[in-house]
């Protein structure tokens, strides 16, 4: 069957903002699908609210709608675009949910849109736990005993019958949201109630526990002719009980005989056929009792998933791309394997290496959340590594995590070993290592963890080897022993530590002994056929397959695992850098270790090195490739920390000089630069001791902002209103800043914060965007909504900002991108921070202006000038790029995954993703952004207002607007008096500590639709926290700053006034309209 010719235009649904459980793997799959369908000649219409994605780049689809992924907006797009079909299976759970909603609302039928991939009945059969169980029973597959309940009593009865622990899985939630394991009645009642509340259908599946069983996943594909293949088997290092997204996983499965593997393969295919996924990829999860091999099927996802992204990277088989082709009618045997070119895609990849994935968690950002792992996913990112053996892959994965803190600290408590091994937690691997170092046996560790003894034995042997190596010396080590260490994946850094020497000394000695890294290819076929795709990983084998070219080439260092503050935005910049390099005639070489990203797709760059972003591994690639330039300014902090050491090692870094990047981070030197330029910044100092910190803070006057040097995403940053806080901070923050001082700034309260992105070629400065924050200064810039163009800043202040930005860019010798953060207080503009590199906002600004910033930046780094890109910038080479409409970027927070955590915003970044709203007026854009962020503003109802004394006057104006919009108002005493005095009707309610009913009671009763609660600033009182937590739990928008409250009113007014309307990025930035501006 060749591709279908009756389809012309196909709509793809993206997955929206990055949240825990649905991250940039869906940008990867969506991007692949867009590319594949366009390559087949189809017109592609895309809807995705996430501006940081590569898929929403105007050149990846014919029509790109950065609009809310909701029924109303999707229908509006369908009405305008009239697509022939909708591809539902590459946009994660969000994509599936929207597709079902469109089908059920009759929209697809009304506009004659065909659903491609999985049909509604199949999706339901896979997602509805009861239907799924019935379907599996029908084909003779077992599932754990279970019962679907909609009340706590029924759950209690089930547990009484079958015993504890029991597993709870709410229906239709993302990443197992709201699920958990209950070991006793008390936990059961709590978790079950929460699950029922969080499930959109109020249902929870209560299930027999298969805790401690082995866990496996198979990635399956099927075409319309019913050809089925397994792409990859994955075995979880962590047994059942930990969400697979939070498990360390290994590919291929290691501990199954062929009989058992084929049993699982047969079951996967039977499952796929019974569920009725016509075409595309699916993922099937199994639990296996290690005692007798009893197998249960846990779930199946009838779509491309996080695991399929991992499987694609692990095997070199591009699941999403092939899934898109199958959806339009191709058969698997009609598609060629890109890597071998000769053989068809209809085969099962085989691996001659081992792949290890380790998740990355950030519990430290959510004080109050217990760092334990269960059935609800908590990790924010992951790394993958490839090694010729499990030991090598595991060692590489651990260092890919860049968990600087744990490897530097390594303080473990022997007494904690049993607890840390029994209860899955982010430090479990480290504690297993520690236990082995202390002499624990494989059997002992297995008993506590239920981890398969084969994995444990491998890990223990690795640790024994490390201990043996510690008794060697740099001078005495033999080449055989050195090779053994490197083949086990042990890093030069560790060897240097063992032997009390420097990493360069180990490297030199290693080379002297002839032990150097080689590179092997990921080729889908274990070398059976020739590979034409340079997708490489390092090893210490005998033969190197890198086969570098003699072209002009530039290497890009990626951003490593996703984490809060360093996410998809940087991958966006890296990918664009790669595309630009290719366009400018350079070979592009990518180095990265994040399997979720587009940058680690083998066809994004000319050459891909799937490697940890460490000094050692990057130098290995440099030694082999000898690039003409290395780009460090696109991958966030990860490559920046490598910039100076790499430069010292003779690596040609292009763009802004690493010395100047360093200067901007160095408080003293940067302070002097600002003085020389006559640019003000908040009064500040730096301290290396507790006493010094208190002294400086006292001198500056409270409140002060304290933070370590070299941070991203505001890690460990706090606003201190008193000396106690400073002291406590210094005691706790030392962990993060051993070598570098703590920075202390006078904190500017109630200031407006502004982010500026600019391009500089060393002679001219072009400001790409001046973004006005909607939250005040003090809220981390990544956690604040912001708007392009600025809507309340005066022309004189904008002029000052332009002037400062130009001066700074030229003074720092910026070649490429720069980001500056300003605060405006009392008409005075202060510089808060300068980062001479690509920032988090680059994709957003690129989309709002229609100008590809990373591409121009790469051109500048290659020696071109801004004047060379006048064609892309509407002729502008200085000044500020125009913005044709209003674009609001809003953050998305994971608080619902961390119950009990205070959701108040502060200087520590905690959002995982972002969305963009587009409108003709500010209110419209903000309303759309809020809708996309999952916190839609209510059309009517009751608003609760409680503001501190400073804001009382503003509250009156606010109250008036709410009243005009027809909202009922309730307020606490002080605010109510102010409102009543101004003649605004409002009801009084108690504060939490005053009595009842109070705001928390009203929230629980469902009588509040909006909360405006500004903090008194100095302390976070418990009643404030209670209100915010309750609001998050009940999904009531909770606004904590006055500026955001004003924006909210604007947005609500727009929703009453403006129709539902959408614009594609292509029409917004149409050349004709660009010229008009």
């Amino acid at each position: 069957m060749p591709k279908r010719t009756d389809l012309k235009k196909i709509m793809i649904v993206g997955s929206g903002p990055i949240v825990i459980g649905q991250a940039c793997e869906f940008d990867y799959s969506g991007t692949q699908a867009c590319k594949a369908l366009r390559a087949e000649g189809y017109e592609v219409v895309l809807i995705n609210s996430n501006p940081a994605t590569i898929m929403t780049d105007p050149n990846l689809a014919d029509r790109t709608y950065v609009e809310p992924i909701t029924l109303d907006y999707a229908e509006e797009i369908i009405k305008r675009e009239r697509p022939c079909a909708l591809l539902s299976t590459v946009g994660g759970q969000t994509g599936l949910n929207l597709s079902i909603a469109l089908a059920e609302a009759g929209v697809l039928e009304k506009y004659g849109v065909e659903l491609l991939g999985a049909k509604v009945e199949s999706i339901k059969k896979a997602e509805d736990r009861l239907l799924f169980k019935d379907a599996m029973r029908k084909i003779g597959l077992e599932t754990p005993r279970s019962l679907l309940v909609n009340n706590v009593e029924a759950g209690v009865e089930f547990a009484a019958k079958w015993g504890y622990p029991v597993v709870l899985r709410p229906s239709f939630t993302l990443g197992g949201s709201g699920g958990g394991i209950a070991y006793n009645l008390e936990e059961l009642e709590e978790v079950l109630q929460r699950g029922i509340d969080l499930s959109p259908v109020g249902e929870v599946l209560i299930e027999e526990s298969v805790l401690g069983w082995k866990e496996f996943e198979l990635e399956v594909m099927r075409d319309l002719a019913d050809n089925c293949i397994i792409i990859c088997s994955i075995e979880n290092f962590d047994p059942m009980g930990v969400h697979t997204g939070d498990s360390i996983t290994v590919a291929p499965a290691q501990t199954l005989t062929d009989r058992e593997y084929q049993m699982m393969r047969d079951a996967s295919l039977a499952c796929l056929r019974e569920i009725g996924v016509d075409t595309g990829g699916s993922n099937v999860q199994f639990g296996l009792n290690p005692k007798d091999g009893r197998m249960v099927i846990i779930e199946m996802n009838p779509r491309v998933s996080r695991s399929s992204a991992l499987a694609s990277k692990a095997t070199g088989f591009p699941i999403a791309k092939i899934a898109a082709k199958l959806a339009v009618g191709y058969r698997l045997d009609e598609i060629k394997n890109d890597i071998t070119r000769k053989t068809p895609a209809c085969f099962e990849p085989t691996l001659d290496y081992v792949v290890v994935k380790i998740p990355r968690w950030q519990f430290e950002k959510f004080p109050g959340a217990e760092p334990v792992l269960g059935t609800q996913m908590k990790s924010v990112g992951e790394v993958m590594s490839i090694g010729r053996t499990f030991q090598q892959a595991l060692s590489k994965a651990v260092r890919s995590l860049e968990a600087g803190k744990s490897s530097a600290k390594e303080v473990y408590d022997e007494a904690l070993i049993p607890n840390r091994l029994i209860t899955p937690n982010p430090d479990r691997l480290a504690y297993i290592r520690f236990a082995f170092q202390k002499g624990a046996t494989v059997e002992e560790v297995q008993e506590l963890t239920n981890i398969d003894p084969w994995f444990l034995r491998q890990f223990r042997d690795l640790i024994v080897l490390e201990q043996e190596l510690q008794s060697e010396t740099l001078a005495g080590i033999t080449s055989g022993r050195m090779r053994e260490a490197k083949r086990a994946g042990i890093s030069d850094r560790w060897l240097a530590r063992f032997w009390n020497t420097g990493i360069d000394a180990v490297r030199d000695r290693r080379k002297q002994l002839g032990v150097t890294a080689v590179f092997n290819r990921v080729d889908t076929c274990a070398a059976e056929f020739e590979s034409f795709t340079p997708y490489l990983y390092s090893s210490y084998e005998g033969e190197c397959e890198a086969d570098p070219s003699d072209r002009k080439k530039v290497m890009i260092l990626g951003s490593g695992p996703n984490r809060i503050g360093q996410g998809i935005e940087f991958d966006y910049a890296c990918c664009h850098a790669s595309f630009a390099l290719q366009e400018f005639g350079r070979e592009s070489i990518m180095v990265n270790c994040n399997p979720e990203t587009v940058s680690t797709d083998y066809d994004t760059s000319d050459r891909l090195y799937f490697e940890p972003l460490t000094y050692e591994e990057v130098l290995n690639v440099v030694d082999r490739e000898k690039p003409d330039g290395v780009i460090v300014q696109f991958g966030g902090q990860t490559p920046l920390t490598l910039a100076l050491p790499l430069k010292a090692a003779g690596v040609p870094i292009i763009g802004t000089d690493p010395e100047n990047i360093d200067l901007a981070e160095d408080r003293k030197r940067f302070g002097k630069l600002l003085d020389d330029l006559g640019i003000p910044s908040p009064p500040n100092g730096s301290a290396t001791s507790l006493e010094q910190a208190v002294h400086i803070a006292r001198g500056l006057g409270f409140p002060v902002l304290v933070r370590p040097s070299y941070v991203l995403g505001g890690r460990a940053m706090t606003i201190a209103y008193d000396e106690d806080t400073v002291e406590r901070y210094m005691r706790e923050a030392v962990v993060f800043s051993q070598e570098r001082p703590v920075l202390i700034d006078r904190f500017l309260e109630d200031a407006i914060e502004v982010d500026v992105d600019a391009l500089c070629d060393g002679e001219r400065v072009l400001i790409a965007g001046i973004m006005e924050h909607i939250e005040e200064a003090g809220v981390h810039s990544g956690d604040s909504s912001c708007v392009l163009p600025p809507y309340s800043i005066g022309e004189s202040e904008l002029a000052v900002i332009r002037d400062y930005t130009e001066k700074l860019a030229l003074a720092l010798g910026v070649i490429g991108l720069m980001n500056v953060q300003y605060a405006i207080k009392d008409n005075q503009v202060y510089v808060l921070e300068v980062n001479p590199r690509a920032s988090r906002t680059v994709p957003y600004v690129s989309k709002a202006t229609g100008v590809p910033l990373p591409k121009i930046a790469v051109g500048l780094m290659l020696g071109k000038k801004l004047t060379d890109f006048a064609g892309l910038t509407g002729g502008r080479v200085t000044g500020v790029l125009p913005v044709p409409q209003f674009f609001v970027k809003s953050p998305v927070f994971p608080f619902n995954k961390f119950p009990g955590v205070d959701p108040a915003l502060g200087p520590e970044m905690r959002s995982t993703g972002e969305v963009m709203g587009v409108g003709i007026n500010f209110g419209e854009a903000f309303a759309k952004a809020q809708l996309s962020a999952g916190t839609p503003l209510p059309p009517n109802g009751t608003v609760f207002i409680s503001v501190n004394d400073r804001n009382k006057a503003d509250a009156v104006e606010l109250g008036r607007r709410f009243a005009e919009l027809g909202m009922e108002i309730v307020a606490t005493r002080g605010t109510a008096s102010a409102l009543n005095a101004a003649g605004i009707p409002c009801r009084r309610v108690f504060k939490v500590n005053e009595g009842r009913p109070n705001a928390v009671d009203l929230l629980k009763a469902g009588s509040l639709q909006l909360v405006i609660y500004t903090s008194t600033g100095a302390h976070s009182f418990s009643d404030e926290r209670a209100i915010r937590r309750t609001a998050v739990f009940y999904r009531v928008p909770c606004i904590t700053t006055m500026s955001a409250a004003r924006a909210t009113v604007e947005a609500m007014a727009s929703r009453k006034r403006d129709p539902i309307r959408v614009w594609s990025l292509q029409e917004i930035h149409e050349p004709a309209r660009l010229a008009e501006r």
Partner: protein
Amino acid sequence: MEKSILALEDGSVFEGRSFGARTVRSGEVVFNTSITGYQEIFTDPSYCGQIVVLTNPQIGNYGANGDDCESAQPFIEGLVVRDFAPVASNWRSEEDANRFLERNGVPIASGIDTRALVRKLRSGGVLRGVLSGDGGDPAKLVEMARSIPSMAGLDLATQVSTAKPYEWTESVKACSPSEQIGKTAEPGRHHVVAYDFGIKRNILRRLVQVGCRVTVIPALTPAEDVLALKPDGLFLSNGPGDPEPLEFQAGQVRQLVGKVPIFGICLGHQVLALALGGKTFKLKFGHRGANHPVLNYRTNRVEITSQNHGFAVDPDSLDAGKIELTHINLNDDTLEGFRHRSEPVFCVQYHPEAAPGPHDSRYLFDDFAAMIAENKKA
């Protein structure tokens, strides 16, 4: 740490760590890309005369057990892997894989850059080699490798065949309470006589499962003796080595075509081709793995198949008027199966019995049973 050495006829030498037996064995060096199923590979008689390189780097993980043996003992001459684990982590394991091979006299070289070795075999073709589990002088081992006979022209099938006929009645057993092994037909419905050229047990188990009583006979059994057994069907098994020297066997099969329904697998397929006037040739590095896509022309569907062969049938050598080509390998377009247009005869080059490998082609055993039933009716 004891050293193992793999020496090849082209002069190259790979050194590793020794496991298994501390002996010196020689053979043709071939590679298999299956991720799972090392024990089935060790014990498949088709590997007689071959040193096997497994591309999956982690071997030995799940130990060894009696149920997964494809014959009474290992047939490989030696094992070459990247990382061998002398542990056994699996509820069915009875001993570790190291002990299993050691007590059967098979040397293991671990720590070898198997990828480099496979790349060499892929580009230059299979090579003769010597595997020493006990060190030694590499130069001498290379000399030895050059002196061993080439696989081409060797009749290994007769060597590994059973000396005496025997009955087989054991069916497929589930490996876990959850395994679905498929329907088991009424036992002993049909009497099948199976030529043993190196037959795998799972073929026998699958034949029993579809209702056959099987008499396994030596490779040199004359056609009249076969007919004397009054078979309802004849099966031609897999086996090692070059099919060309099996002139006697091909001659017997030629006499049996048309007299009894025939099903052949692997070497059995090649012998059948020779019997019908076809020719075989040696592949550069063979097909050994569990992921080969085979298109079934009759159903127009792709089966993922298990393969193990170094020779293949030349489709152009078959009489198109008499023979219908039924299966083709999508990787290299080689012939994977054919049937006789007028007689009840069909065969495949690959392994529908899997062990190891996918079960996509299990239907062929049902087809054989149905063909026998049909023939009985007629």
